[in-house]
């Protein structure tokens, strides 16, 4: 037995995990080898020193409580188990990526067209076949023409609408003016009537007073 072999056996010996026959060998070696004996003694002292750090109280008192399970939680647990097996995780990641690729390719190949006031769209997983530069420019020209036609139509409609609106407003304004004038004239008429009535009543009162005065003068007793 050499000192190098001893390193492993020394640990077995130090922690009482040594087989009886090996223990005899180690004991014999330690008796003959001062270096190994010294090492064994210091290591066993170090081991003893380490023991001075006693166990501490965590003051945790962990307690697991049963959760009342909701159907949503149960579904989530079923769909995304806390610790899914590795292949399960891989499969879900792969499915996610595939779905993403499909979605992106569908979006890339989506066509939206506008023709004679109608919107239309088509989507495809593969790009539309047979699109050439000429076809593209033709399509662009066609679209431009449609847009211009539509623009003209909208412009005319807008102008017509503005004209109608103006006419309607003017007519309303004129009607309002005439109605105002009529009511003003009526007010003036009523005012004149009232004034005439007032004047008449004053004249009548004056006449009555004059009559009374006249009677007083006429029937004055002779002195």
């Amino acid at each position, binding site marked *: 037995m050499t000192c190098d072999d001893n*390193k*492993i056996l*020394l*640990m*077995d010996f130090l*922690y009482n*995990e040594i087989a009886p026959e090996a223990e005899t060998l180690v004991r014999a070696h330690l008796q003959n080898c001062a270096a190994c004996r010294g090492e064994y003694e*210091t*290591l066993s*002292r*170090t*081991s*003893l*020193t*380490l*023991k*001075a*750090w*006693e*166990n*501490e*109280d*965590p003051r*945790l*008192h*962990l*307690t*697991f*409580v*049963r959760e009342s*399970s909701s159907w949503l939680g149960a579904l989530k647990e079923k769909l995304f188990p*806390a*610790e899914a097996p590795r292949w399960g995780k891989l499969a879900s990641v792969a499915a996610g990526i595939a779905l993403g690729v499909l979605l992106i390719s569908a979006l890339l190949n989506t066509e939206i067209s506008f023709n004679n006031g109608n919107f239309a769209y088509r989507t495809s997983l593969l790009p539309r076949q047979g699109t050439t530069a000429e076809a593209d420019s033709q399509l662009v020209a066609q679209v431009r023409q449609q847009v211009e036609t539509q623009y003209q139509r909208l412009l005319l409609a807008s102008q017509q609408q503005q004209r109608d609106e103006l006419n309607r407003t003017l007519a309303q304004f004129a009607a309002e003016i005439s109605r105002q004038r009529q009511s003003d004239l009526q007010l003036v008429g009523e005012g004149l009537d009232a004034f005439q009535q007032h004047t008449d009543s004053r004249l009548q009162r004056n006449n009555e007073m004059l009559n009374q005065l006249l009677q007083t003068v006429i029937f004055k007793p002779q002195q």
Partner: protein
Amino acid sequence: MTDGDLINKFLNGPDTSEGTNAFNTLVWRWEKPMYNFILRYLGKQEEARDLTQQVFIKVYRNLTRLKDRERFSAWIYQIAANLCRDVIKQKRRNRAYSLESLQESGALDEAAHPALTLLPEAALHPDRIVSRNELRDILEKALQEIPEEQRVVVIMKEYQGLKFTEIAEALGVSVNTIKSRMYYGLSALKKILAQWQFDEEAMLYDV
């Protein structure tokens, strides 16, 4: 009731109160060993508490996948060791980042940070008799000084009292590798404590 019995009881009815009680008994049985293991591994009480909780959450979620119920001890230590290793890796990444910024600002000049500041208070005054609390701090710092793969073996052997075969099983390496790491870890600790002029005599005069 053995751990295996409790596990069976829990797995037979995880949604029943008996199952929950069995699991909680298992938790209370293992709470202290797990906490102390993690505390000595990482050296931070708050972190150890958080990580202990995480260990039991992992146990709760994965217990169905433990085939051999009698291997629970090795299994739970494996979970705890993996969590600690993740935390250390994370810290190393963060530190690499912050070291970069410190180097740029010149804060890492040796004059500004002499190596002595890293030593525990008691190690600076070797003549003084240390209290048990100081001794604990010294050992905590000394454990953090040795390589992580040796530290975990030393903790499992010295404090958790696991057999070499159990440690090998929990860490997934051969028994001889474990013994060798134990030897080098213990030797390194011996050297560190001697460098700090601290030996077991201090402990004998414990106040």
